[in-house]
């Protein structure tokens, strides 16, 4: 399977080329486009990015592996991220994680057997005033508790 950008992304890429002095700077924008399209960075996508940036795949993989938001393996349909850093921790993040692990029957970093959810504990999301914060598919949900989270999970599933 080969990888190709959607027309919108391809257009965006052309627009961005003139903005950077080197094609190498397109790595992060391209990785984002690829991950948005496929849910993770497939070997084909990495090869595509390497080609577009005139780098070798090892180099692109090295960069991608530095940034924790890039997934180098397939993820669940939905990603649940619970912030565990201090302000969220002080406001009950651990209880949320415990409840989620129980409800979903998985531990941190795992994906449910049906492929619906991947559960992650993440570091400070910059939402300390909305602690504890849970991010589902990139959307921030403020001041969560076990009850609100259960509802949220149901909404996400359906």
């Amino acid at each position, binding site marked *: 399977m080969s990888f190709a950008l959607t027309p919108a992304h391809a257009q965006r890429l052309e627009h961005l080329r003139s903005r950077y002095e080197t094609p190498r700077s397109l790595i992060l924008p391209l990785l984002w486009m690829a991950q948005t399209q496929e849910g993770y960075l497939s070997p084909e996508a990495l090869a595509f990015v390497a080609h577009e940036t005139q780098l070798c795949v090892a180099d692109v993989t090295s960069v991608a592996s*530095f940034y924790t938001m890039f997934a180098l393996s397939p993820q669940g349909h939905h990603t649940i991220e619970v912030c565990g850093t201090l302000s969220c921790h002080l406001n009950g993040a651990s209880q949320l994680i415990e409840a989620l692990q129980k409800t979903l029957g998985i531990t941190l970093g795992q994906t449910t057997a049906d492929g619906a959810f991947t559960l992650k504990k993440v570091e400070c999301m910059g939402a300390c005033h909305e602690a504890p914060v849970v991010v589902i598919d990139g959307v921030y949900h403020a001041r969560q508790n076990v009850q609100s989270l259960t509802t949220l999970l149901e909404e996400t599933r359906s």
Partner: protein
Amino acid sequence: MSHDLVVSARFGIANSHTLIVAQAHGAYTQLSTLLAQPPQSLVQTVIDSGLRGKGGGGAPTGAKWQLLEGQAKPRYLVVNADESEPGTFKDRHIIEHDPHLLIEGILLSCHALEAKAAYIYMRGEYRFWHDRLQSALDEAYGAGILGAHSCDITLHRGAGAYICGEKSALLESLEGYRGQPRLKPHRPEPEWLWGRATIVNNVETIASIPYILYKGAQAYRAMGTKESAGTLLFGLSGHVNRPGVYELPFGMPLLEVIETYGGGIRDGRALKAVIPGGASTPVLTAEQAKNATLSYEGMKLAGSALGTGGMIIMDESTSMVDALDNLLAFYRHESCGQCTPCREGTHWASSIVHDIARRQPRSDALPTLKNIARTINGQTICVFGPAVADVINGFLRNFPQEFA
């Protein structure tokens, strides 16, 4: 206390993020007048204002800008929107409520710096704020505020790395490398993006520029203290009743801010500790917090640092061992791994404190922890290492009984 709002004046206005509303409330009104002025006069106003970088370091902005003097063109401005310091969530409010203030600040700054283009490096988690800022940029391009006759502004999205808030790591990341800090130069010089002289400023710093240039250096200086001029978006989180961001002049008593703005400690409990300016500033005891004021000099006097102004409040129920364990897990996760003392020291310190938290420490846990803190302090490539040392030392020094 009445004072001007430098960056949050339009926060309360409905749809303030749209161009039309922002313009109706003063955005871009003096832009063309100011862009007609000689760049050096704008730099001078910023120097005179006493503006200090609002990303945590507090370095004088004007002096930083002067590093570009005599440097070849093209030059670049990079705006640091990688806000990732635990306890800090201020820049996102500017982007959410007043992205045009930031854009105007960038246009003015680029003119002052004679920069060809600007890049905004935003943390990857801020997807909503990324989209909001991109919409604002698109609007500004559409309205001709940005475009043919101005510098280009490009929004660049990070992807989950705290260290990219360090300016040289940010530039490495922008260049397409792993976000690892560069070796520090031996004398003051600008930063370098693709080998071009570059200035890196925090979002709030750049968002402060329109106020300073519109109202003059003296108006800004009139607020705050002599050494800490102006205002800052302070953040309150943790065990407070009303967590949030509040733009306040420098120099207010810390406890007053917790009471007045934060609504006091949750559940009527007593204050135990405050991390005053983001996770990397040393923790203060309630006693130390009593006389502390929120300025660069005031926080230094109290035994900590002002940092980003993002305060994490902890009440009497908090275990300090647990809190340090939590913070070290953060630093372990975020150490870039480039230099040995930080890579190994942070991981090791985290394991030791985790053992203490599980009540299974080795007999030499504390002396080893102190040794690690000493070794990573000042002997690493960037300030991440010393920050970890400060965090460890702050907890051990101020709450020794809990680690005994």
